[in-house]
């Protein structure tokens, strides 16, 4: 081999604490190195040009660059060597900036360490082989999981871009959490008025197939060619026949059915339509409360249905779909705040969640927009809002900020004043996070124009005084004293958690999730929409807390990723994947057992069974390589011999 080594000064970033010329001099003694030079900035255009020229001039067939982290510039230099006619995988990097010059000041030690890192890179390079990507067809359809505002936005953008969309929603109606909100901050727009038209568009768009009351059961395949199984839950109503007229809901005798759409603040009927603007506007029977389904007698809805849509025998249905990529937009749930025993642990009816309060404010809610407290239906006068309930609280394992509670609490305080002009609102807060466009102005309005009393401190205890009030004991840290409020209603700004079942879905999607269940993006700053599984994108709160505009933006961003992916007719795989040496494979199946991606299958060849890597599915983790006892399956570009070459370079005494 003929190897060229280029040592980058990175201005003084590296050269400040590493003798780059000395490293180059040392590198000349390494095997197969025919050229080693130090360059001021390798990544700058002249630097890259120098590398290209050297490849031509010295007929190099491999290049080592010692500079910054490969996580930053490996793609850059791979393109450089490719331009000069080398295979992009005949290139190695030594990280002498982040791992050397920036973490130590001893020039002698740094120079020695940099030299060794170059030596390791040379040793690895000598075992590198040119790798070639393979191409395969794409199925240009997208699956979007979750039809909250993020999912809806992604679906509409994709559909407008001419892509066939399969939209799956767990609930009976699309719209997600936004559909439950009364108004939205900071404009105090009617939530239903701005979301409604988008929901109608989803229903009417020819490119969108909507499965409501459905969940993704199974996902197999790989980017470009996923196979999806969708479980369509039994609704006991034939939706092809249901017109959404509502006759059934009027007559249903099971009137004490818990109303999940209204966050359990009021009852509904066993057969119901979530809310007037529901999409699809179809009735659904709650089997746990339907008298026909639980006791076997009733049948009222079947009798009154003008189209004969009721079907008590309906079963779950499994539907299969084939798509080329997936957008997860599964949103969030509120955490179970009843762990706060000091707030009554859910035993006091007049301690409600912010989302319940939205339903109390909403004209389509159980109180038709009149604020009535759950215990006795009275209009509350003193209302206490407590922020950060289940947010920023390590003691219950939720250290993160839920992001939008400060804003909606201000909104709710404003709306409260609008609804009950003689009411008094108190907000216990720790910090006010209002960093969006006209957000801070909005919270100031709540204080200045609506007289909301903001108290800086947490609440330690809530308990009923036995006379119909709730005693709220908190602190005003600005005053440096405990404070106590006799409240009629307490609204908790309950923290956000990943939607229930997120980890399970993540496992089906083969994407990672953090310890709170939020899906992990590929890069926290630069790849917020992509995941580490090719062809799976994220939108909305499932990736991390965000408010409506951010969710919508990410929905559109995910759509852009989908359209970008589908702008090609063929996809190329990453050739850094595993492959089986059939001569060595004894078909013991250990690699198949532990591959996290199901990327290895058993194949027969001349009467014997062997393992074979499905090239499009393999993600290149190399778990199989470290599992195979005879080294028959090797991960390209990180083979046993390549890593051994590095180990042997370092350990040879």
């Amino acid at each position, binding site marked *: 081999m003929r190897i060229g080594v280029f040592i980058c000064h990175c201005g003084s970033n590296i050269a400040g604490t590493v003798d780059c010329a000395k490293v180059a001099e040392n590198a000349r003694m390494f095997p197969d190195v025919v050229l080693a030079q130090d360059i001021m900035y390798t990544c700058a255009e002249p630097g890259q040009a120098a590398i290209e020229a050297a490849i031509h001039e010295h007929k190099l067939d491999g290049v080592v660059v010692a500079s910054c982290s490969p996580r930053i510039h490996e793609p850059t230099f791979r393109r450089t060597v490719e331009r000069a006619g080398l295979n992009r995988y005949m290139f190695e990097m030594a990280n002498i900036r*982040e791992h050397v010059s920036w973490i130590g000041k001893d020039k002698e030690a740094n120079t020695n360490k940099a030299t060794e890192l170059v030596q390791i890179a040379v040793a690895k390079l000598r075992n590198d082989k040119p790798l070639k990507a393979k191409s395969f067809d794409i199925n240009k359809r997208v699956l979007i999981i979750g039809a909250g505002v993020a999912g809806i936005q992604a679906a509409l953008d994709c559909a407008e871009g001419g892509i066939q969309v399969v939209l799956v929603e767990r609930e009976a109606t699309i719209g997600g959490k936004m559909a439950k909100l009364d108004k939205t901050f900071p404009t105090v727009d009617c939530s239903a008025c701005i979301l409604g038209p988008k929901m109608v568009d989803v229903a009417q768009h020819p490119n969108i197939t909507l499965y409501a009351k459905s969940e993704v059961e199974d996902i197999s395949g790989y980017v470009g060619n996923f196979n999806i199984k969708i479980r369509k839950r039994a609704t006991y109503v034939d939706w092809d026949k249901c017109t959404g007229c509502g006759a059934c809901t009027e007559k249903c005798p099971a009137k004490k059915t818990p109303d999940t759409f209204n966050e359990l603040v009021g009852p509904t009927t066993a057969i119901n339509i979530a809310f007037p603007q529901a999409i699809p506007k179809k009735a659904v029977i709650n089997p746990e409360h339907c008298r026909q389904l639980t006791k076997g007698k009733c049948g009222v809805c079947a009798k009154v249905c003008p189209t004969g849509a009721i079907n008590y025998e309906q079963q779950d249905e499994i539907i299969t779909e084939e798509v080329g990529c997936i957008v997860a937009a599964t949103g969030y749930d509120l955490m179970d705040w009843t762990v706060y025993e000091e707030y009554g642990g859910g035993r006091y009816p007049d301690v409600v969640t912010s989302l319940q309060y939205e339903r109390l404010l909403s004209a389509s809610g159980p109180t038709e927009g009149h604020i009535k407290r759950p215990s006795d239906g009275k209009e509350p006068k003193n209302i206490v809002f407590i922020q950060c309930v289940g947010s920023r609280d390590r003691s219950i394992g939720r250290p993160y900020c839920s992001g939008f509670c400060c804003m909606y609490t201000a909104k709710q305080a404003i709306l409260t004043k609008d609804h009950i002009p003689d009411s008094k609102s108190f907000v216990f807060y720790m910090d006010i996070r209002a960093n969006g466009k006209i957000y801070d102005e909005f919270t100031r309005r709540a204080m200045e124009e609506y007289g909301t009393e903001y108290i800086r401190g947490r609440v330690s205890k809530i308990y009923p005084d036995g006379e119909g009030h709730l005693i709220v004991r908190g602190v005003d840290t600005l005053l440096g004293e405990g404070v106590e409020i006799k409240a009629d209603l307490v609204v908790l700004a309950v923290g956000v958690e990943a939607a229930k079942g997120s980890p399970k879905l993540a496992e089906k999607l083969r994407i*990672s999730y*953090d310890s709170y269940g939020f899906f992990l993006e590929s890069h926290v700053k630069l790849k917020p929409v992509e995941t580490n599984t090719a062809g799976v994108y994220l939108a909305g709160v499932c990736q991390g807390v965000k408010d409506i505009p951010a969710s919508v933006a990410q929905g559109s961003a995910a759509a852009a990723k989908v359209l970008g992916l589908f702008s090609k007719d063929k996809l190329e795989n990453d050739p850094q994947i595993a492959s089986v040496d059939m001569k060595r494979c004894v078909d013991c199946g250990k690699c198949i057992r532990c591959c996290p991606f199901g990327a290895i299958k058993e194949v027969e060849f001349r009467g014997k069974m062997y393992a074979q890597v499905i090239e499009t599915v393999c993600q290149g*983790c190399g778990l199989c390589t*470290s*599992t195979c006892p005879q080294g028959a399956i090797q991960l390209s570009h990180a083979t046993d011999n390549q890593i*051994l070459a590095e180990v042997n*370079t370092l350990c040879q005494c």
Partner: protein
Amino acid sequence: MPVLNGKELRIVGFLCNWCSYGGADTAGTARAGQPTDLRIIRVPCSGRIDPLFIVKALLNGADGVLVSGCHPRDCHYAAGNFYARRRLEVLKQFLPVLGIDDRRFEYTWVSASEGQRWQHVVQTFTKRIHDLGPAPKLEDPEPLLKVVDMALTSLRPLGTGQKNKLDELKAAIKAKLPELDVVIGWQQGYDAARTVPLFMRTPEDVDKLVWGPFNVNNPAVYLPQYKGKKVGIVVKGCDAKSVVELLQENLINREDVTIFAMPCEGTLDMARVNQELGRYTTIDKVEYDEAGVTITADGKEHRFCMNDFAQGKCYGCTMPTAVLSDTLIGTPTEVKPGPYTPPELALLDSMSLDERLAFWRGQMERCIRCYACRNACPMCVCRDYCIAESREPHWISQEDSTRDKLFFQTIHAMHLAGRCTGCGECQRACPVGIPILALRQQIARAVAQLFDGYKSGVDPEAVPPLLGYEVEEKNIHEREWK
């Protein structure tokens, strides 16, 4: 390139590309100063790290090895670090038996954002290695040749098994024989004081079958080569464990194997028997009684009481009868598990780390790499493609070096993690009597401790522990970096 004399020690790091390598980058970006000893090897995933890379480094001059991957649940590849965690922990518990201080190897989880944590990890680990000082080399100590103490007490009375109904067993085999390609058992060897494996294809072959304390070989070693054929096998309790383990790993099919079993009363440690017999030309007579065997060779009588001359494994055996069988002649005896450390492991346990290193140096010197240990192992199914003799991958050189020989034993032991049933055939097969079983015993002990008393070869449905994981491991806990 040697380490900087006096300043640095050789510390090798294996970091996953996605989290920990990024974490080290973050530390660099934050100018979080660190000692200069560490050399980082970038791998795609902690799951890619074969524990043998670490042993390779430690045997060849590394003073410390640090592995870091994504935090559990954060793996870029969903589950790579879950597998890594189990394998690395097993390795950590294994190293001391080689005489390597397990503090020289550590693994942890650092995310791409945890630059400070990375700095702390590097500082702490480097300090730890400097406190430990340069690692001793295998060649440094004087060879130490200690002998295993075989004065053992058995959990149950050992015997010669002559009351077993061998005729019934023969009849049962003969009845099944027409459906089977071959039945594997034991027959008399070149003299009456030893047996060898028997391959029965005709009723006349079946008549050669013997049962008794000389039946030392584990017939399960032959099963994988018959995969797809109908095979019968006669087993002792320990042999059955190998059969079960092979089933567990899908290396043989249950429907192809017919298991014939009789309760075993113990087998002889032929090493000590041969030692006692010495050089002789002919066996005159072998007589059995309940407690032992009397062998007359060249006119001289030698008495072998089973309680004194059994194989090490027989003393601690709690499963004298096959855990799984199709035909069982006789009734299984219950043996209450008791405290038992295998004698080889007990010997190693009694030594200091330095003594262990000296011990292995002394033992491995006489290894001539015949690989009888490997080939006698029923679990070594890839022996024909063993990495001990391959160039792609090239793990071991063919040089006559103690290190490479010990490294091979480590490979064998690590490859047996969670799979070894302790049948002891590796050690019995060794012509030069190296007590290599101790390494497998330590692996088995570590696996049992880590995975709730997991024993291989007991449950055909169980997942071998290193081919599975738990999101929350009950017995593996992140070490604190304080």
